[in-house]
């Protein structure tokens, strides 16, 4: 290792423990990661976008994915969209426990807004992953 690399390696600070906690909380409840750091406006904006996207998706009749195979497709194909859905944290878990948003019946699928709903639910999870990373970076001091 050359001298400059050694100096750079010594300057890297370890991530504070509370950053991991805040990151986990931010994933579990959208917006809470910023709220815990008293970034109220950011919490309302980012968390609000995730919550809104999730409930609009549900209202449109979208459905979330879990590992149960549906309509002949394998469970493996359900994994990527499930990871996206899982990004909403507690919203996904509570919906799964209540059985809300997991119905895959033909009547629901025939709704004009069904595919839109699916997309909004997927995007809610993916946006919350971004929000979680933002909260983590702020807590770790990597971002203002």
């Amino acid at each position, binding site marked *: 290792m050359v001298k400059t690399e050694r100096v750079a390696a010594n300057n890297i600070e370890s991530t504070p423990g509370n950053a991991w906690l805040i990151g986990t909380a931010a994933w579990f409840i959208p917006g809470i990661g910023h709220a815990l750091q008293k970034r109220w406006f*950011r919490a309302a*904006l*980012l968390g609000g*976008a*995730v919550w*809104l*996207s999730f409930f*609009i998706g549900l209202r449109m009749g979208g459905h979330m994915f879990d590992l149960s195979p549906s309509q002949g497709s394998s469970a493996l194909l359900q994994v990527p969209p499930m990871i996206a859905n899982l990004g909403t944290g507690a919203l996904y878990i509570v919906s799964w426990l209540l059985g809300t948003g997991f119905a895959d019946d033909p009547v629901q699928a025939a709704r004009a*807004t069904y595919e*839109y709903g699916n*997309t*909004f639910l997927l*995007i809610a999870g993916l*946006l919350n992953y*971004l*929000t979680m990373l*933002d909260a983590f970076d702020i807590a770790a001091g990597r971002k*203002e």
Partner: protein
Amino acid sequence: MRHFLVMCLFAALASVVFGAMAKDTHHERVLYGLKVFAEFIIIGLALAWVLYFIPW
């Protein structure tokens, strides 16, 4: 019309998050969010017209 409004809503929610997370100053963030919103709409409309002529 409803499809377009849903697309606008989707673009607004995504661009709010992208805009809030990117750049350094408040002004830059607003501009970036607006730019992302416009890109979503323009690309969405362009794709819609391309797909309109594909017969499937």
